[in-house]
């Protein structure tokens, strides 16, 4: 396989512009800004099959094409660097070790959609990545890679970093825009979509860090080479974030569509402490859990969707046989309750109640009816809200009940957590 994002991962000081340029960095601009028209870049990206790496997997080129054409209109590109999905830690690594790759991708994307200003909305907690990016942007301006007439192409671009301040919901693209406008990060009702009415009411493209980091490769090497990795409709490579009960946690870049089994047992070294696998969350906290008999599934957008889960951010969280799935659902329900912005009643109330019922069940104070009630609450949230946070909130709840109903029944029967008891005895 060919690495696209982690090609130079072992090169020290890649964040230094000279080192980056020495490795061939910023070369895509010569072709991209001088030989290709914006529409030609959109076309290459479309044909590459690249799908957004921020979670939803929407085709990037098609999304860029929605942006109204023409020079008279102000347009914006926002790089979504809010990475807050539990289980995801890829964008942070990309920004910290290879900030210029992101800037190069931002330049090409801005040129393609006709944006003269681009904002990187970075999660507030990521102070280290922020400083690295800040320095990288300063260097890029000094070299004429940002600002006026980039590389004598006639294209002007300003890039600014905007720090968030702690709110998972600001990763949702319309909440991100609200936040960037200086408001609370509450998602907007769509339509209108940001491509027509986004930041300051202007056409706006929001793209994930990893998505944008793929663009220089696609422009330089063409759509065919990009699409030669991965699977049909799921082309290219993906960074899989491996965490939980595995021997070698970390980020791994591999083609889309590799089997989950390979990822867990070969790439990440198998389950810790010689234990057996119990459950896997394949795509971050918002993705439904999978069971050991599903580990031959292919890790791509379509295969996981067909299995009722999703690739999401490819944050793969592995849990071994000693893990209590009621506790797992409780932990994640606390997260979603905490992060619900409160704008829609089903999400605000529902995440609260799911968390309450799960607390009761885990503490051993629940009855069988509480499990039914929990499922009922979850089923009444899905599809009735402004944004997809609520769908994420119900995924761990519904999938844990569906796959690990026995864990719930034991909590009721034994009036407590059976795993706590086993672990206390051990």
């Amino acid at each position, binding site marked *: 396989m060919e690495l696209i994002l982690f090609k130079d991962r072992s090169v020290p000081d890649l964040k230094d512009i000279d080192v980056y340029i020495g490795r061939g960095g910023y070369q895509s601009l010569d072709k991209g800004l001088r030989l290709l028209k914006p529409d030609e870049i959109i076309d290459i990206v479309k044909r590459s099959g690249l799908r957004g790496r921020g979670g939803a997997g929407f085709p990037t080129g098609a999304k860029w094409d929605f942006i109204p054409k023409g020079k008279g209109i102000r347009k914006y590109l926002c790089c979504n660097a809010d990475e807050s999905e539990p289980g*995801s830690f890829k964008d942070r690594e990309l920004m910290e070790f290879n900030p210029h790759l992101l800037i190069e991708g931002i330049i090409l994307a801005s040129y393609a959609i006709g944006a003269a200003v681009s904002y990187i909305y970075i999660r507030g907690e990521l102070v280290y990545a922020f400083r690295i990016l800040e320095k990288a942007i300063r260097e890029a301006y000094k070299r004429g890679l940002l600002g006026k007439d980039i590389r004598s192409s006639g294209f002007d671009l300003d890039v600014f970093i905007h720090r968030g301040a702690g709110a998972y919901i600001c990763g949702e693209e319309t909440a991100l825009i609200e*936040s960037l406008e200086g408001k609370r990060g509450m998602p907007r009702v769509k339509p209108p979509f940001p491509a027509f009415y986004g930041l300051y009411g202007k056409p706006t493209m929001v793209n994930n860090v990893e998505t944008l980091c793929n663009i220089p490769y696609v422009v330089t090497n063409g759509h065919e080479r990009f699409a030669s990795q991965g699977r049909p409709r799921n082309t290219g490579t993906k960074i899989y974030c491996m965490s*939980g009960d595995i021997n070698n946690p970390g980020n791994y870049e591999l083609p889309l569509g590799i089997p989950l089994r390979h990822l867990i047992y070969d790439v990440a070294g198998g389950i810790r402490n010689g234990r057996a696998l119990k459950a896997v969350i394949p795509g971050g*906290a918002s993705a439904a859990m999978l069971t050991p008999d599903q580990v031959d599934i292919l890790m791509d957008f379509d295969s996981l969707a067909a299995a009722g889960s999703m690739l999401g951010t490819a944050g793969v*969280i592995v849990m071994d046989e000693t893990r209590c799935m009621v506790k797992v659902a409780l932990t994640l329900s606390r997260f979603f309750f905490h992060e619900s912005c409160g704008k829609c009643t089903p999400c605000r109330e529902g995440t609260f109640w799911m968390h309450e019922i799960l607390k009761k069940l885990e503490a051993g104070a629940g009855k069988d009816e509480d499990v039914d009630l929990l499922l009922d609450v979850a089923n009444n949230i899905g599809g009735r809200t402004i944004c997809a946070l609520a769908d994420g909130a119900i995924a761990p709840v519904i999938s844990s009940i569906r796959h690990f109903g026995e864990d719930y029944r034991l909590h009721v029967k034994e009036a407590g957590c059976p795993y706590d008891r086993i672990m206390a005895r051990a």
Partner: protein
Amino acid sequence: MREDTLKMDFAFSEEAKREIKEIMGHYPEKRSALIPLLHLAQKENGYLSEPVMRHVAEVLDLTPIQVYEVATFYSMFHLKPVGKYLIQVCHNLSCSLMGADSLIDYLKEKLGIDIGETTPDNMFTIKTVECLASCGTAPVMQVNDDYHENLTKEKVDALIERLRSN
């Protein structure tokens, strides 16, 4: 609004004022500078008191409520003072699988405070936070700006020791 907080005044330092000028240049609309200015104000004042928020409102031609609702929406803004070192321990799933819960208990015992509290010498505040985008190096905590990863009790001991002697 309490009398004493009403009387206290806040103003940005000269250096911050220069930074504010630059920040304002990033946006076509002033209001966008609100979160950056709150970060800056918190850095200078330690937390966002009412006079601080009112001052930020004046600088940006906003109403105090427009500032207040934003300050309370985002978890990184403190409306009350915190210790010199704010310890934020992640207790989301991957960290909890790697022992975050016992680490939190250990920290509480070591510092003699509960979650959300500050030590009497105003050195440490402990908070639990959600996923810090560092799950591959769990368990993780953030102390002020810095991440501390792959934590063990020994690492926590060494770190607290070091911070105490600073």
